[in-house]
């Protein structure tokens, strides 16, 4: 009955027309990285580009049934994930700084503010993964009582919900910059919200399984490349 067309959130301007140049730069950086690691590292200039990795099918409170109103329900539990370790962190560590993001359905927490003891924060940029060569210095939000650093709701943060197809699609060109629990930086591109990251998910696809591409800079700098 209700047609909802979300707006483009905010008016953050991304550098225009530089995609190709940046892609070239990225390729050069990547081959340099491979060359460097291949040579077993040089101790003089110790800058290491952040490697891009993919984590597949991170369960984010998968649906176990429906409640009396027909709403899908899971165990109502967050999955804690360390971008530094590229690994799921046991729930027992939820009060520690071992994790960087926590996932439950479409909600993503950072380890900071009201969500955790760490130094975590985040912001969502309108650009491509490759174009983010450096994490912004400022502009990070922290989870608080008035909202999360990564905004929830269709069209507000990282996804659009299509009421016609009942599919959650990551918005192309939305990159989440996460300040991890220890203050280091990572950039994340959400690849899929569905198990196995199908190219064309539909309402029978198994939802609440994140596939993410991310790069974490372990040297503590904001520089990814």
């Amino acid at each position, binding site marked *: *009955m*209700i*047609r*909802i*067309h*979300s*707006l*483009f959130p905010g008016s*953050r*301007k*991304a*550098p*225009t*027309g530089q*995609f190709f140049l940046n892609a070239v730069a990225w390729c050069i950086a990547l081959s340099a990285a491979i060359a460097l690691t291949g040579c077993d590292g040089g101790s003089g200039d110790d800058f290491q580009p952040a490697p891009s990795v993919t984590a597949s099918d991170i369960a984010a409170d998968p649906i176990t049934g*429906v*409640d*009396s*109103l*027909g*709403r899908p329900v899971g165990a109502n539990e967050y999955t804690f994930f360390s971008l530094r370790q590229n690994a799921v962190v046991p729930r027992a560590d939820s009060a520690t700084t071992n994790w960087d993001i926590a996932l439950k359905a*479409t*909600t993503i927490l950072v380890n900071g503010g009201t969500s955790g003891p760490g130094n975590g924060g985040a912001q969502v940029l*309108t650009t*491509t*993964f*490759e174009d983010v060569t450096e994490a912004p210095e400022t502009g990070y939000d922290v989870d608080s*009582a*008035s*909202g999360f650093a990564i*905004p*929830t*709701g*269709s*069209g*507000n943060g990282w*996804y*659009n919900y*299509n009421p*016609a*197809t009942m*599919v959650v*699609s*990551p*918005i*192309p*060109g939305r990159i989440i910059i996460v300040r991890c629990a220890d203050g280091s930086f990572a950039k994340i*591109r959400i*690849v899929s919200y569905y198990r196995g990251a199908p190219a*064309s998910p539909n309402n029978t696809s198994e939802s609440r399984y994140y596939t993410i*591409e991310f790069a974490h800079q372990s040297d503590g700098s904001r520089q990814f490349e």
Partner: protein
Amino acid sequence: MNPSAGPSRIHRRHFVALLAFVVAVVAGIRTPPAMAQDGRPDSSGTPGRAPVEQDDIAMEAALPAIVVTATRAGRDIKSLPVPTSLIAGDVVSRQASLRLTDVLQRHPGLQVVYDHGAGIQIQGLASDYTLILVDGEPLIGRVAGTLDLDRVSVAAIDRIEIVRGPSSSLYGSEALAGVVNVITKAPESRWSARVRSQYETHQTSDVAIEAETASEDGSVGARVYGTRYASAGYDLSPLVVGMTSPGFVDYTGGGKVRFGAGTSRTRGELSIRANVQDQTDDVLLSGDDSEVYEQFGRRKEISVAPELTHRLTPEATAVLSLYGSTFDTRTDTRSPTTTQEAASSSELVSRALFEQRYAKAELLARLIPSTMHLVTASAGFVHEHVEADRIAGGSRSSRLGYAFVQHEWLSGDALDVISSVRLDHHSEYGTHVSPRVAALVSPGRDMRVRAALGSGFKAPTFQQLYLDFTNPAAGYSVFGSADAAGAIRMLDEAGIIQTYLQDIENVELAPETSWSLNAGIEKDLQLAGSGRRPGAQIGLRVNFFRNHVSNLIEAAPVALKTNGQSVFTYYNLNKIVTQGIEFESTILAPGGLHVTASYTYLDSFDCEVVDEIKSGNVFRREGLRDVRVTRSEYGGLANRSRHMATLGLARTFAGAGTTADVHVTYRGRYGFGDLNGNLIVDDDSEYVDGYFLLDATVSQNLGSHLVLRGGGRNLLDHSDPTRIPSLSGRRLLVALELII
């Protein structure tokens, strides 16, 4: 490999086959001797009124066509500065159309689109921008903006007039893309009656009865009609619970009483129309897949329109008209019944009611201060009332006062200028002014140049003003703008609001407004005949249009709830542009052949989307990377075809009493919606391929009172169950008509 090569080749093959078929049908039936001898219709020796008028197709073009919608008074369609087209009742009959949808779907440049019913898209503008009138009065009862054209029976219509471009300067809200006016027949003959029975695929049947009587001089008359229209419906996806299009039984009845027509100074007319439809379907309730519930829907509408016309002086006429209309729907959901239980024991799970009332009073005056000037002035008042579960407070009312004035300047033959302006004052959205100016220049008798510039508007709907809805499953809420601030404050006091995204005070909704330009040329050609046989008459028409619509009303998040879901209300946000060119050609060849061909090119876009694309903020996924969408990749507004075409051939064989009608509609490729998360149409997977619809009917007179008709719609059997569920595949029909 071009991935689109396959489908387009199939279409080309279809099209060639189609052309061959069309040529075969029209050329194959040999011209009867009676016609061939002198080329004129044989008008001798037919007692009474022949069911198919002698050479009626030629008659259509020969008589001056008087239309009333464009200026609120009768005018010859050729002399009108405002682009207007006409569909004659005869065409509707010979094409065996039952509902307004069937008729408009075939008309050049119009596109039937489905969203909670069949609506009409004119010049690429959505169906809620077109005003639908029956005998000059608005139909009410839009669902999600769509006024379902299947509600309107065309059993007793005289003609349909279509005005393109904004007409808010005469009609107010909704007349933004155009006006469709369905004009029912008036009592004219001493005594006549008609009974028609039609059967179609999907157990669709329609029985219509009409009768009329009028005094010898035609000054007093009465006319009644009634139809029963029913169908078993169809199911294109049997694995899904419920029919694709559920079965229904629909009754329409109406009538007209007239007195004082002709020379008397005072004349009156009373029109009544009523429609009831019952529909039953199976549904699943959300969260309960185990049981199939039964859903019963009843729709009921009644309209009454008395009108009194008095000629004060030869130069001044006053018209007082009243109009009342009701539109009610009821949707009952019942628990499943087992075979042992009686149907009456099934439990009513839910009942949803919707009631709309519309009352209007209008006084109109027509003045002729001199032979070159014609002035129409009018003032009126509208009261509207709505009752529904999802309306804040259960029921709401609104009031509207309006006045308009129109000046027609007729400077002889060469130039004709119409200017009009209307002022609307509404209890909810305030004052709105709509002007229009249109001019016609005739450089010669056979050529006309038209231009019309006007502004239209669409008032916020009841839903946009008063909705109070929370989705129980998803947990989001939507409030109409009139109550949003109060409703959100209440949620905040209850601790449900987490954060505000927008200032909730001063949320005031304005009407959606447009500026439109139509400009075109019309040319008549008379080809030289051979011997005594006259040549073909050709009419060519081209019209350029550009529509700017701003202040589009959209739901947007205003606050976030503690459950992570949004609270929405309505805002005036986007701007859209639609522009294009319409070509139309009619050929009236000797021997009763009538050809109409049309092509429409349409370009449409959302200005905000274009800005965002230019700023580099819109992306799509290509393999494993995100790339920026370019302007040329943006497919414009969804559900708009860039290319549309129609081809109609009709031929009457007067001697044999046969009329054949073949019609092809082409709907070009169009985007149906977003799949890749960027909310715009840009990816190949987001398009529906273009397709052809072929309809054909043949009518045969059996004696002087009976007509037998057979044919089919969508004869190429095109279907696409997931993307075009409204297309049920090939439908065959047979009909018998008795005229007394």
